[in-house]
């Protein structure tokens, strides 16, 4: 514990910023005892969330999601490929999560961040197991052609709760996605159609168009996630990087729109999670899922 008396003496003389750097845990605990956090949020409240769809014009679907300062940009590019023989009626999604050096002072070029492949795998597991996307919708010609979606998520600012923001941006990008118009040409290959103004194009569209107009995917069971920190008897929702570096026990709960649990991820940490703590985290995640559903709903209307 150190010398509590000396820190009491120092705290009267020290500036707040210095105290925050030198005794970070004590700084936070002083706030937690008043049920607040340094940015004046109550313990169970997440930061302000903004979702902006359709920012990348060259991509078939894109979205920017900001939770507080954590910023994620997701972009989807669709390409035609031959489906595998095990599932000739299904398309495929390839997800990649990137943490470029811009996002955090700890990430250097040439050395990929430790967290990036882990978040990448967790995201693809969550999206595929939640059943949000029906891969059969991505089929063009059974056994011969299907869509492959390359989803790239770039972290532009890493300020805690990376998985939550990345999942939100991925979901928003999928709801913004418009599958391009293609047709089957004489060689039996799929070609993209740029516009319907050409006479040749128009005849192709009438005769062999595989899908006539840009269509959107139907998303069911959309997953929403919330990361919480467990510290002694406190549960903090939506942590910032500073909070994550001081208190190391993180629990991520992912719920879908029918209140089923898609994932409960707790990876070590000094605090053990008892069922009361897990239940509280699930409750906080439920509230958050309602908020996020509303935000995504507003985005779609625009």
């Amino acid at each position, binding site marked *: 514990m150190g010398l509590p008396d000396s820190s009491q003496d120092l705290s009267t003389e020290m500036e707040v910023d210095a105290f925050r750097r030198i005794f970070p845990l004590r700084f936070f605990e002083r706030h937690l005892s008043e049920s607040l956090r340094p940015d004046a949020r109550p313990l169970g409240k997440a930061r302000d969330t903004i979702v902006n769809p359709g920012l990348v014009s060259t991509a078939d679907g894109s979205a920017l999601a900001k939770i507080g300062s954590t910023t994620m940009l997701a972009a989807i590019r669709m390409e035609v490929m031959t489906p595998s023989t095990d599932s000739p009626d299904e398309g495929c999604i390839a997800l990649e999560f990137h943490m470029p050096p811009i996002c955090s002072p*700890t990430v250097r070029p040439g050395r990929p961040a*430790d*967290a990036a*492949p*882990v978040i*990448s*795998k*967790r995201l693809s*597991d969550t999206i595929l*197991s*939640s*059943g949000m996307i029906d891969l059969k919708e991505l089929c063009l010609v059974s056994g011969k052609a299907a869509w492959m979606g390359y989803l790239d998520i770039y972290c532009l600012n890493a300020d805690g709760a990376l998985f939550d923001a990345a999942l939100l941006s991925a979901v928003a990008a999928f709801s913004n996605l418009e599958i391009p118009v293609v047709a089957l040409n004489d060689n039996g290959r799929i070609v993209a159609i740029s516009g319907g103004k050409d006479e040749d194009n128009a005849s192709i569209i009438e005769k062999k168009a595989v899908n006539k107009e840009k269509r959107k995917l139907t998303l069911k*069971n959309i997953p929403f996630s919330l990361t919480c920190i467990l510290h002694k*008897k406190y549960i903090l929702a939506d942590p910032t990087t500073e909070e994550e570096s001081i208190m190391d026990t993180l629990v991520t709960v992912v719920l*879908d729109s029918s*209140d*089923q*649990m*898609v*994932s*409960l*991820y*707790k*990876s*070590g*940490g*000094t605090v*053990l*999670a*008892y*069922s*009361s*703590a*897990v239940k509280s985290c*699930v409750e906080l995640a439920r509230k958050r899922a309602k908020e996020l559903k509303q935000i995504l709903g507003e985005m779609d209307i625009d």
Partner: protein
Amino acid sequence: MEIDRVDGRTPNQLRPLACSRNILHRPHGSASWSQGDTKVLAAVYGPKAGTKKNENAEKACFEVIWKPKTGQIGKVEKECEMILKRTIQSICVLTVNPNTTTSVIIQVVHDDGSLLPCAINAACAALVDAGIPMKHLAVAICCCLADNGYVVLDPNKLEEKKMSAFAYLVFPNTTLSVLPEGSSVAEGEPVEHGIITSVTHGVMSVDDYFLCVENGHAATASLSAFFRKNFQQSQRDSSKAG
């Protein structure tokens, strides 16, 4: 309605466990752990001087290297490394040897389902063999949810693929105290009911998750007993030899 498992086990029955320690002579600690056909080899080197770049120099640091049976190292292996590293960090006493790095190397010998829990158990046994100071052991179990709501423990690979959802749960080991009142309690539950690590795959309802956790508690009791018997056995053998 009872579940029929291919190998005839009851839903709560674990596969035969086998653990041998001190099998490799170069590492400071080593162990081989097998549950049925899933076999994992773990080796511990350390503590070595110095920590990695971004790590806290006032605490001991752990690094985990996961080697799959075949193929190159990809995201799956990186995720397993991260989960194992954080689990080990939470069970070891980090302040005893500050500014040191301990390496845990996991080699997958055969994967027949429930691989990550097997690796966590093997790593614990290897850490004990190396003499790394720990608060308690991490006992890992895989709980699957069958379609009719039954929880099945320790599935093999075919069962894992068939099931709608499964969860890897890691708990502290059950303590053996002279007086039953002596076992520690926190928040109204015994300490060994706290979850160290939980990784789930597939969609399940919140109540089903808690059902898995309850079944996991029962399994940790039998796994802890196995650990205890195994360590006491080898201690007895080495004291006879010496």
